[in-house]
Protein backbone atom coordinates (compact mmCIF):
# COMPACT_ATOMS: atom_id res chain seq x y z
CA UNK A 1 0.00 0.00 0.00
CA UNK A 2 1.32 3.54 -0.74
CA UNK A 3 2.01 6.12 1.95
CA UNK A 4 -0.70 8.69 2.65
CA UNK A 5 -0.55 11.85 4.74
CA UNK A 6 -2.85 14.72 5.54
CA UNK A 7 -1.30 18.19 5.82
CA UNK A 8 -2.64 21.25 7.60
CA UNK A 9 -1.41 24.75 6.82
CA UNK A 10 -2.49 27.93 8.60
CA UNK A 11 0.53 30.13 9.24
CA UNK A 12 -1.11 33.26 7.77
CA UNK A 13 -4.55 34.06 6.30
CA UNK A 14 -4.91 30.87 4.22
CA UNK A 15 -6.17 27.69 5.78
CA UNK A 16 -5.21 24.71 3.65
CA UNK A 17 -5.76 20.97 3.96
CA UNK A 18 -4.29 18.45 1.54
CA UNK A 19 -3.93 14.68 1.18
CA UNK A 20 -0.93 13.27 -0.69
CA UNK A 21 0.05 9.80 -1.81
CA UNK A 22 3.65 8.59 -2.13
CA UNK A 23 4.28 5.33 -3.98
CA UNK A 24 5.89 2.73 -1.76
CA UNK A 25 9.24 2.72 -3.59
CA UNK A 26 12.23 4.77 -2.45
CA UNK A 27 12.25 8.57 -2.44
CA UNK A 28 13.51 9.65 -5.87
CA UNK A 29 12.70 12.19 -8.59
CA UNK A 30 11.24 9.48 -10.86
CA UNK A 31 8.93 8.25 -8.12
CA UNK A 32 6.33 11.02 -8.26
CA UNK A 33 3.81 11.86 -5.54
CA UNK A 34 0.08 12.11 -6.29
CA UNK A 35 -2.00 15.04 -5.09
CA UNK A 36 -5.30 13.52 -3.95
CA UNK A 37 -6.85 16.71 -2.61
CA UNK A 38 -5.77 20.28 -1.92
CA UNK A 39 -8.50 22.51 -0.48
CA UNK A 40 -8.12 26.03 0.85
CA UNK A 41 -10.12 28.84 2.36
CA UNK A 42 -8.77 32.39 2.71
CA UNK A 43 -9.58 34.91 5.39
CA UNK A 44 -10.32 38.10 3.48
CA UNK A 45 -10.56 41.54 5.09
CA UNK A 46 -12.20 44.73 3.80
CA UNK A 47 -10.18 47.02 1.46
CA UNK A 48 -7.52 48.99 3.31
CA UNK A 49 -7.23 46.45 6.14
CA UNK A 50 -4.68 43.76 6.89
CA UNK A 51 -5.49 40.54 8.72
CA UNK A 52 -5.31 40.61 12.49
CA UNK A 53 -4.03 37.51 14.31
CA UNK A 54 -7.15 37.08 16.46
CA UNK A 55 -9.61 37.20 13.56
CA UNK A 56 -7.41 35.05 11.33
CA UNK A 57 -7.17 32.43 14.08
CA UNK A 58 -10.96 32.53 14.46
CA UNK A 59 -11.35 31.94 10.71
CA UNK A 60 -9.06 28.89 10.89
CA UNK A 61 -10.80 27.48 13.98
CA UNK A 62 -14.22 27.74 12.43
CA UNK A 63 -13.29 26.32 9.02
CA UNK A 64 -10.77 23.61 9.86
CA UNK A 65 -13.22 20.75 10.50
CA UNK A 66 -15.16 21.52 7.31
CA UNK A 67 -11.96 21.60 5.27
CA UNK A 68 -10.58 18.36 6.73
CA UNK A 69 -13.84 16.59 5.87
CA UNK A 70 -13.79 18.03 2.36
CA UNK A 71 -10.14 17.07 1.79
CA UNK A 72 -10.73 13.46 2.90
CA UNK A 73 -13.87 13.23 0.77
CA UNK A 74 -12.14 14.55 -2.36
CA UNK A 75 -9.16 12.27 -1.77
CA UNK A 76 -11.50 9.32 -1.20
CA UNK A 77 -9.35 8.31 1.74
CA UNK A 78 -10.42 7.10 5.18
CA UNK A 79 -8.55 8.27 8.29
CA UNK A 80 -7.39 4.70 8.97
CA UNK A 81 -5.53 4.72 5.63
CA UNK A 82 -3.39 7.70 6.61
CA UNK A 83 0.18 7.23 7.85
CA UNK A 84 0.58 10.57 9.61
CA UNK A 85 -0.82 14.04 10.27
CA UNK A 86 1.47 16.87 9.17
CA UNK A 87 1.09 20.46 10.32
CA UNK A 88 2.88 23.77 9.90
CA UNK A 89 4.99 24.26 13.00
CA UNK A 90 6.32 27.67 11.92
CA UNK A 91 7.29 30.28 10.94
CA UNK A 92 4.14 32.36 10.84
CA UNK A 93 1.62 34.29 12.91
CA UNK A 94 1.27 32.87 16.42
CA UNK A 95 -2.50 32.75 16.86
CA UNK A 96 -3.34 31.18 13.46
CA UNK A 97 -0.53 28.62 13.88
CA UNK A 98 -1.96 27.78 17.29
CA UNK A 99 -5.46 27.16 15.88
CA UNK A 100 -4.13 24.71 13.33
CA UNK A 101 -1.79 22.82 15.64
CA UNK A 102 -4.70 22.19 18.01
CA UNK A 103 -6.69 20.70 15.13
CA UNK A 104 -3.68 18.56 14.15
CA UNK A 105 -3.18 17.26 17.70
CA UNK A 106 -6.87 16.49 18.03
CA UNK A 107 -7.19 14.39 14.88
CA UNK A 108 -3.85 12.69 15.53
CA UNK A 109 -5.16 11.50 18.90
CA UNK A 110 -8.63 10.64 17.58
CA UNK A 111 -7.24 8.54 14.75
CA UNK A 112 -4.16 7.31 16.65
CA UNK A 113 -1.70 8.66 14.07
CA UNK A 114 1.76 10.18 14.51
CA UNK A 115 2.28 13.92 14.13
CA UNK A 116 4.95 15.49 11.95
CA UNK A 117 5.72 19.20 12.40
CA UNK A 118 6.81 20.89 9.16
CA UNK A 119 8.75 24.07 8.49
CA UNK A 120 6.53 26.18 6.22
CA UNK A 121 9.42 27.26 3.94
CA UNK A 122 10.58 23.66 3.50
CA UNK A 123 7.02 22.79 2.49
CA UNK A 124 7.14 25.37 -0.30
CA UNK A 125 10.57 24.20 -1.52
CA UNK A 126 9.76 20.49 -1.56
CA UNK A 127 6.39 20.96 -3.25
CA UNK A 128 8.01 23.24 -5.84
CA UNK A 129 10.67 20.62 -6.59
CA UNK A 130 8.05 17.87 -6.79
CA UNK A 131 5.71 19.73 -9.15
CA UNK A 132 8.33 21.25 -11.46
CA UNK A 133 10.91 18.47 -11.47
CA UNK A 134 13.73 20.92 -10.66
CA UNK A 135 16.47 18.77 -9.18
CA UNK A 136 18.85 21.13 -7.40
CA UNK A 137 17.73 24.71 -7.99
CA UNK A 138 18.52 27.99 -6.34
CA UNK A 139 15.21 28.78 -4.67
CA UNK A 140 13.68 32.24 -4.49
CA UNK A 141 11.07 32.11 -1.75
CA UNK A 142 8.85 35.18 -1.95
CA UNK A 143 5.64 35.58 0.02
CA UNK A 144 3.80 37.89 2.39
CA UNK A 145 5.94 36.83 5.33
CA UNK A 146 9.21 35.64 3.82
CA UNK A 147 11.79 36.71 1.25
CA UNK A 148 14.80 34.40 0.98
CA UNK A 149 17.27 33.15 -1.62
CA UNK A 150 18.09 29.57 -0.73
CA UNK A 151 20.39 26.85 -2.02
CA UNK A 152 20.80 23.25 -0.86
CA UNK A 153 24.08 22.01 0.56
CA UNK A 154 24.86 19.00 2.73
CA UNK A 155 21.33 18.24 3.97
CA UNK A 156 20.34 21.83 4.73
CA UNK A 157 18.53 24.46 2.71
CA UNK A 158 20.94 27.33 3.30
CA UNK A 159 19.90 30.97 3.18
CA UNK A 160 22.16 33.01 0.89
CA UNK A 161 20.22 36.26 1.09
CA UNK A 162 17.03 37.58 2.64
CA UNK A 163 15.06 40.66 3.52
CA UNK A 164 16.40 42.74 6.37
CA UNK A 165 12.95 44.06 7.26
CA UNK A 166 9.59 43.38 5.59
CA UNK A 167 8.86 40.65 3.04
CA UNK A 168 8.21 41.47 -0.61
CA UNK A 169 4.57 40.32 -0.38
CA UNK A 170 4.06 42.44 2.70
CA UNK A 171 5.43 45.46 0.82
CA UNK A 172 2.95 44.88 -2.04
CA UNK A 173 0.03 44.12 0.32
CA UNK A 174 0.63 47.27 2.34
CA UNK A 175 0.81 49.40 -0.76
CA UNK A 176 -2.52 47.85 -1.80
CA UNK A 177 -3.92 49.03 1.54
CA UNK A 178 -2.65 52.55 0.88
CA UNK A 179 -4.45 52.46 -2.49
CA UNK A 180 -7.50 50.91 -0.78
CA UNK A 181 -7.87 48.30 -3.50
CA UNK A 182 -9.71 45.04 -2.68
CA UNK A 183 -8.02 42.18 -0.81
CA UNK A 184 -9.85 39.57 -2.90
CA UNK A 185 -8.62 37.37 -4.45
CA UNK A 186 -5.36 38.79 -3.08
CA UNK A 187 -3.93 42.30 -2.80
CA UNK A 188 -0.76 41.29 -4.67
CA UNK A 189 -2.78 39.97 -7.61
CA UNK A 190 -4.69 43.25 -7.82
CA UNK A 191 -1.43 45.26 -7.76
CA UNK A 192 -0.16 43.03 -10.59
CA UNK A 193 -3.25 43.75 -12.71
CA UNK A 194 -2.87 47.52 -12.18
CA UNK A 195 0.87 47.31 -12.93
CA UNK A 196 0.10 45.78 -16.34
CA UNK A 197 -1.52 49.09 -17.30
CA UNK A 198 1.40 51.20 -16.01
CA UNK A 199 3.67 52.81 -18.64
CA UNK A 200 5.84 55.36 -16.83
CA UNK A 201 8.66 54.23 -14.53
CA UNK A 202 8.99 56.36 -11.41
CA UNK A 203 12.46 56.01 -9.91
CA UNK A 204 12.30 54.45 -6.44
CA UNK A 205 15.11 53.66 -3.98
CA UNK A 206 17.02 50.49 -4.94
CA UNK A 207 18.13 48.86 -1.72
CA UNK A 208 20.21 45.74 -2.23
CA UNK A 209 22.68 45.26 0.64
CA UNK A 210 25.15 42.59 -0.47
CA UNK A 211 23.01 39.48 -0.71
CA UNK A 212 20.21 41.00 1.37
CA UNK A 213 17.37 43.40 0.62
CA UNK A 214 15.50 46.13 2.41
CA UNK A 215 11.97 47.05 1.40
CA UNK A 216 10.52 49.16 4.20
CA UNK A 217 12.13 52.35 2.86
CA UNK A 218 10.81 51.70 -0.65
CA UNK A 219 7.33 51.21 0.75
CA UNK A 220 7.53 54.43 2.74
CA UNK A 221 8.72 56.27 -0.38
CA UNK A 222 6.04 54.95 -2.74
CA UNK A 223 3.38 55.43 -0.04
CA UNK A 224 4.29 59.10 0.23
CA UNK A 225 4.10 59.46 -3.57
CA UNK A 226 0.62 57.88 -3.53
CA UNK A 227 -0.50 60.27 -0.77
CA UNK A 228 0.81 63.24 -2.76
CA UNK A 229 -1.01 61.92 -5.83
CA UNK A 230 -4.33 61.53 -3.96
CA UNK A 231 -4.03 64.95 -2.30
CA UNK A 232 -3.03 66.68 -5.56
CA UNK A 233 0.25 67.96 -4.06
CA UNK A 234 2.95 69.18 -6.40
CA UNK A 235 5.75 66.66 -6.81
CA UNK A 236 8.21 66.52 -9.72
CA UNK A 237 8.20 62.74 -9.61
CA UNK A 238 4.49 62.66 -10.31
CA UNK A 239 4.90 64.39 -13.69
CA UNK A 240 5.75 62.30 -16.75
CA UNK A 241 8.17 63.48 -19.48
CA UNK A 242 5.22 64.52 -21.67
CA UNK A 243 3.84 66.69 -18.87
CA UNK A 244 0.92 64.40 -18.01
CA UNK A 245 0.34 63.12 -14.47
CA UNK A 246 1.64 59.82 -13.12
CA UNK A 247 -1.17 57.35 -12.38
CA UNK A 248 -1.77 54.76 -9.67
CA UNK A 249 -1.04 52.14 -12.36
CA UNK A 250 2.38 53.76 -12.96
CA UNK A 251 3.17 53.54 -9.25
CA UNK A 252 2.20 49.84 -9.10
CA UNK A 253 4.32 49.20 -12.22
CA UNK A 254 7.31 51.08 -10.77
CA UNK A 255 7.11 49.31 -7.41
CA UNK A 256 7.03 45.90 -9.06
CA UNK A 257 9.89 46.73 -11.45
CA UNK A 258 12.07 48.03 -8.64
CA UNK A 259 11.65 45.23 -6.10
CA UNK A 260 11.62 42.44 -8.69
CA UNK A 261 14.89 43.78 -10.17
CA UNK A 262 16.39 43.57 -6.68
CA UNK A 263 15.19 39.97 -6.32
CA UNK A 264 16.62 39.04 -9.73
CA UNK A 265 19.99 40.57 -8.80
CA UNK A 266 20.49 38.57 -5.61
CA UNK A 267 19.15 35.38 -7.18
CA UNK A 268 21.60 35.70 -10.06
CA UNK A 269 24.46 36.21 -7.64
CA UNK A 270 23.44 33.09 -5.68
CA UNK A 271 23.27 31.07 -8.94
CA UNK A 272 26.75 32.23 -9.88
CA UNK A 273 28.06 31.39 -6.42
CA UNK A 274 26.72 27.82 -6.27
CA UNK A 275 27.14 27.13 -10.00
CA UNK A 276 23.46 26.36 -10.55
CA UNK A 277 21.52 26.94 -13.76
CA UNK A 278 18.10 26.30 -12.25
CA UNK A 279 15.99 28.78 -10.36
CA UNK A 280 12.79 27.78 -8.63
CA UNK A 281 10.35 30.48 -7.50
CA UNK A 282 8.04 29.53 -4.63
CA UNK A 283 5.67 31.43 -2.32
CA UNK A 284 2.61 33.53 -3.05
CA UNK A 285 4.49 36.29 -4.94
CA UNK A 286 5.93 33.53 -7.14
CA UNK A 287 2.60 33.55 -9.03
CA UNK A 288 3.39 37.03 -10.35
CA UNK A 289 3.89 36.71 -14.09
CA UNK A 290 6.13 39.78 -14.33
CA UNK A 291 8.49 38.37 -11.70
CA UNK A 292 8.58 35.07 -13.60
CA UNK A 293 9.28 36.96 -16.84
CA UNK A 294 12.12 39.02 -15.37
CA UNK A 295 13.66 35.97 -13.70
CA UNK A 296 13.28 34.03 -16.96
CA UNK A 297 15.26 36.68 -18.88
CA UNK A 298 18.08 36.47 -16.35
CA UNK A 299 18.07 32.65 -16.39
CA UNK A 300 18.12 32.65 -20.20
CA UNK A 301 21.19 34.90 -20.22
CA UNK A 302 22.89 32.29 -18.06
CA UNK A 303 21.73 29.40 -20.28
CA UNK A 304 19.56 28.32 -17.39
CA UNK A 305 15.90 27.58 -16.70
CA UNK A 306 13.24 28.94 -14.43
CA UNK A 307 10.74 26.73 -12.61
CA UNK A 308 7.53 28.06 -11.11
CA UNK A 309 4.15 26.67 -10.12
CA UNK A 310 0.63 28.02 -10.40
CA UNK A 311 -1.51 29.40 -7.60
CA UNK A 312 -2.53 25.93 -6.34
CA UNK A 313 1.01 25.35 -5.11
CA UNK A 314 2.57 28.85 -4.97
CA UNK A 315 0.06 30.26 -2.55
CA UNK A 316 0.08 28.67 0.93
CA UNK A 317 -1.57 25.26 0.80
CA UNK A 318 -2.03 22.07 2.78
CA UNK A 319 -0.60 19.70 0.20
CA UNK A 320 2.94 21.10 0.51
CA UNK A 321 2.83 20.41 4.25
CA UNK A 322 1.49 16.90 3.61
CA UNK A 323 4.29 16.29 1.10
CA UNK A 324 7.24 17.68 3.10
CA UNK A 325 5.89 16.03 6.24
CA UNK A 326 5.58 12.66 4.55
CA UNK A 327 9.16 12.90 3.25
CA UNK A 328 10.31 13.51 6.83
CA UNK A 329 8.03 10.76 8.19
CA UNK A 330 9.45 8.23 5.73
CA UNK A 331 12.95 8.99 6.97
CA UNK A 332 12.02 8.56 10.62
CA UNK A 333 10.81 11.96 11.80
CA UNK A 334 8.03 12.01 14.41
CA UNK A 335 6.78 14.94 16.49
CA UNK A 336 5.55 14.02 19.96
CA UNK A 337 2.71 15.97 21.55
CA UNK A 338 5.26 17.68 23.82
CA UNK A 339 7.35 18.68 20.79
CA UNK A 340 4.35 19.92 18.81
CA UNK A 341 4.51 23.48 20.14
CA UNK A 342 4.44 25.84 17.17
CA UNK A 343 6.82 28.75 16.82
CA UNK A 344 6.70 32.08 15.01
CA UNK A 345 10.45 31.96 14.37
CA UNK A 346 11.65 28.83 12.59
CA UNK A 347 14.40 29.40 10.08
CA UNK A 348 14.68 27.34 6.91
CA UNK A 349 18.26 26.25 7.69
CA UNK A 350 17.28 24.81 11.09
CA UNK A 351 15.76 21.75 9.40
CA UNK A 352 17.90 18.67 8.82
CA UNK A 353 16.87 17.45 5.35
CA UNK A 354 16.99 13.73 6.07
CA UNK A 355 15.30 12.74 2.80
CA UNK A 356 18.06 14.12 0.53
CA UNK A 357 21.49 12.57 0.40
CA UNK A 358 22.99 14.43 -2.57
Amino acid at each position, binding site marked *: MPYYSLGLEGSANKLGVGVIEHPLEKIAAYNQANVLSNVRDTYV*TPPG*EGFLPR*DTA*RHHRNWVVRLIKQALKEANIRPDQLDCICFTQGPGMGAPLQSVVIAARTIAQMWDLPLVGVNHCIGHIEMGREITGATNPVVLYVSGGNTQVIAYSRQRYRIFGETLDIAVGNCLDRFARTLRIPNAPSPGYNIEQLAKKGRHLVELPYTVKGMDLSMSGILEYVDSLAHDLFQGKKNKQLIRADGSKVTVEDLCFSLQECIFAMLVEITERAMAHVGSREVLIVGGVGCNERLQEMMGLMAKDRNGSIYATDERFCIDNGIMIAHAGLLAYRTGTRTTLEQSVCTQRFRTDEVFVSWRED
Partner: protein
Amino acid sequence: MTEDTNELLPTAEYSGPVFKRFEVDPSKPHSTSGRTNGPSDYVLAAGAVDRDAPTEAKDTRIGRLRAYITTLQDEVNEFLTERMKSKGEEERQDLVNSEEEEDEDQTGV
Protein backbone atom coordinates in the same frame (compact mmCIF):
# COMPACT_ATOMS: atom_id res chain seq x y z
CA MET B 1 -30.97 20.35 24.52
CA THR B 2 -31.35 16.74 25.53
CA GLU B 3 -29.59 15.44 28.60
CA ASP B 4 -28.33 11.91 29.15
CA THR B 5 -26.34 10.23 31.87
CA ASN B 6 -23.12 10.28 29.86
CA GLU B 7 -23.33 13.99 29.08
CA LEU B 8 -19.88 15.48 28.52
CA LEU B 9 -19.62 18.47 30.84
CA PRO B 10 -16.43 20.52 30.60
CA THR B 11 -14.92 22.35 33.58
CA ALA B 12 -12.03 24.77 33.95
CA GLU B 13 -9.98 26.00 36.91
CA TYR B 14 -7.97 29.15 37.42
CA SER B 15 -5.40 29.08 40.18
CA GLY B 16 -3.23 32.03 41.13
CA PRO B 17 -3.66 34.74 43.73
CA VAL B 18 -7.32 33.78 43.52
CA PHE B 19 -8.92 30.45 42.70
CA LYS B 20 -11.96 30.06 40.49
CA ARG B 21 -13.72 27.02 39.11
CA PHE B 22 -15.86 27.26 35.97
CA GLU B 23 -18.70 24.87 35.28
CA VAL B 24 -21.61 24.77 32.87
CA ASP B 25 -25.22 24.18 33.76
CA PRO B 26 -26.65 21.78 31.13
CA SER B 27 -30.21 22.77 31.97
CA LYS B 28 -29.59 26.28 30.58
CA PRO B 29 -29.50 27.05 26.83
CA HIS B 30 -26.06 26.94 25.17
CA SER B 31 -24.89 27.65 21.65
CA THR B 32 -21.71 27.96 19.60
CA SER B 33 -22.33 31.70 19.14
CA GLY B 34 -20.69 32.99 22.26
CA ARG B 35 -20.34 36.47 23.70
CA THR B 36 -16.56 36.56 23.14
CA ASN B 37 -15.91 34.44 20.05
CA GLY B 38 -17.16 36.82 17.36
CA PRO B 39 -15.11 38.99 14.98
CA SER B 40 -13.18 41.81 16.63
CA ASP B 41 -14.92 45.18 16.89
CA TYR B 42 -12.14 46.76 14.84
CA VAL B 43 -12.79 44.50 11.86
CA LEU B 44 -16.56 44.96 12.08
CA ALA B 45 -16.11 48.75 12.18
CA ALA B 46 -14.02 48.47 9.01
CA GLY B 47 -17.01 46.93 7.25
CA ALA B 48 -16.20 43.22 7.51
CA VAL B 49 -19.00 40.76 6.75
CA ASP B 50 -18.73 37.73 9.02
CA ARG B 51 -18.60 34.59 6.89
CA ASP B 52 -16.53 32.69 9.43
CA ALA B 53 -19.12 32.06 12.13
CA PRO B 54 -19.00 28.60 13.71
CA THR B 55 -21.59 26.07 12.60
CA GLU B 56 -24.50 25.50 14.96
CA ALA B 57 -24.15 22.71 17.50
CA LYS B 58 -25.93 19.46 16.69
CA ASP B 59 -28.06 17.83 19.36
CA THR B 60 -25.55 15.04 19.95
CA ARG B 61 -23.16 14.52 22.86
CA ILE B 62 -20.23 15.99 20.94
CA GLY B 63 -22.40 18.74 19.45
CA ARG B 64 -23.65 19.77 22.87
CA LEU B 65 -20.08 19.68 24.18
CA ARG B 66 -19.14 22.30 21.55
CA ALA B 67 -21.89 24.57 22.85
CA TYR B 68 -20.91 23.98 26.52
CA ILE B 69 -17.28 24.80 25.72
CA THR B 70 -18.34 28.06 24.07
CA THR B 71 -20.19 29.06 27.26
CA LEU B 72 -17.24 28.01 29.42
CA GLN B 73 -14.78 29.89 27.19
CA ASP B 74 -16.94 33.03 27.43
CA GLU B 75 -16.84 32.89 31.22
CA VAL B 76 -13.08 32.28 31.29
CA ASN B 77 -12.47 35.12 28.80
CA GLU B 78 -14.61 37.56 30.76
CA PHE B 79 -12.98 36.57 34.06
CA LEU B 80 -9.45 37.00 32.65
CA THR B 81 -10.31 40.30 30.94
CA GLU B 82 -11.72 41.63 34.20
CA ARG B 83 -8.58 40.55 36.07
CA MET B 84 -6.35 42.23 33.49
CA LYS B 85 -8.39 45.43 33.75
CA SER B 86 -8.26 45.51 37.55
CA LYS B 87 -4.52 44.68 37.54
CA GLY B 88 -3.92 47.50 35.06
CA GLU B 89 -5.92 49.86 37.27
CA GLU B 90 -3.91 48.81 40.37
CA GLU B 91 -0.63 49.41 38.55
CA ARG B 92 -1.84 52.80 37.34
CA GLN B 93 -2.86 53.73 40.88
CA ASP B 94 0.54 52.57 42.27
CA LEU B 95 2.29 54.77 39.69
CA VAL B 96 0.16 57.79 40.65
CA ASN B 97 0.86 57.20 44.37
CA SER B 98 4.63 56.90 43.85
CA GLU B 99 4.70 60.08 41.74
CA GLU B 100 2.78 61.93 44.45
CA GLU B 101 5.25 60.68 47.10
CA GLU B 102 8.17 61.89 44.94
CA ASP B 103 6.57 65.31 44.57
CA GLU B 104 6.08 65.52 48.34
CA ASP B 105 9.78 64.63 48.93
CA GLN B 106 10.95 67.32 46.51
CA THR B 107 8.81 70.06 48.04
CA GLY B 108 9.80 68.97 51.54
CA VAL B 109 6.18 68.64 52.58
